[in-house]
């Protein structure tokens, strides 16, 4: 299991691929579900120039680990990867990558979604959007639907 908070840009598919090789479990898993969240140039308003991600060092890692452990207990997973950016991001930059490996697809899909929803509702990260002439905090995340 790898959980990391990253202060600079990352290439999610390179990370997922490297983690999978390091697992050295080829043939053991039949399913890998991945979710990558990226910075959009729009949210409630168009014209986002930058996104600043703040977090609570210590508590964030603690909750990501807790969520990952919950997923590992609830589904028969071989491994799990969670990466999350902090700092200043720009449109197109990856924010979050979650990848889960399992023997079967049901567990992979369900646990990947579980980790994302729990991360969004419990992990202490906050987004601030910078537009051309102003900046504002994102007040809440969009619903799962």
């Amino acid at each position, binding site marked *: 299991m790898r959980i990391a908070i990253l202060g600079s840009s990352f290439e999610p598919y390179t990370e997922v691929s490297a983690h999978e090789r390091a697992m050295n479990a080829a043939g053991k898993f039949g399913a890998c579900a991945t979710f990558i969240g990226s910075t959009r140039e729009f949210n409630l308003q168009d014209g986002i120039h930058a996104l600043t991600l*703040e977090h609570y060092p210590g508590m964030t890692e603690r909750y990501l680990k807790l969520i990952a452990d919950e997923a590992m207990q609830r589904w028969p997973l071989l491994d799990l990867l969670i990466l999350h950016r902090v700092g200043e991001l720009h449109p197109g930059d990856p924010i*979050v990558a979650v990848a889960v490996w399992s023997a079967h697809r049901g567990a992979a899909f369900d646990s990947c979604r579980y980790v994302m929803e729990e991360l*969004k509702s419990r992990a202490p990260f*906050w*987004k*601030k959007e910078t537009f051309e002439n102003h900046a504002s905090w994102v007040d809440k*995340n969009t619903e799962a639907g």
Partner: protein
Amino acid sequence: MPISVKFFARLRETLQRDGATLDYSPGMTVTQVWQQVSGGIDMPDNTLMAVNMEYVTRTQAVRDGDEVAFFPPVTGG
């Protein structure tokens, strides 16, 4: 050992400080911690709080040396 208080995101900007320390007194709750360090500003209804990096409710008792944090709804991912 004093109680250490932390503020994050919009709350940090509203209070114009990222933290504070205060002396522990017996029976103190998270709400009382807020009252002593917020400079008279009411706690926004949607405020989340944690003691020693674990979510708690407003009535949670604190102990000497605890780390108490206040922050708005989280918006990661």
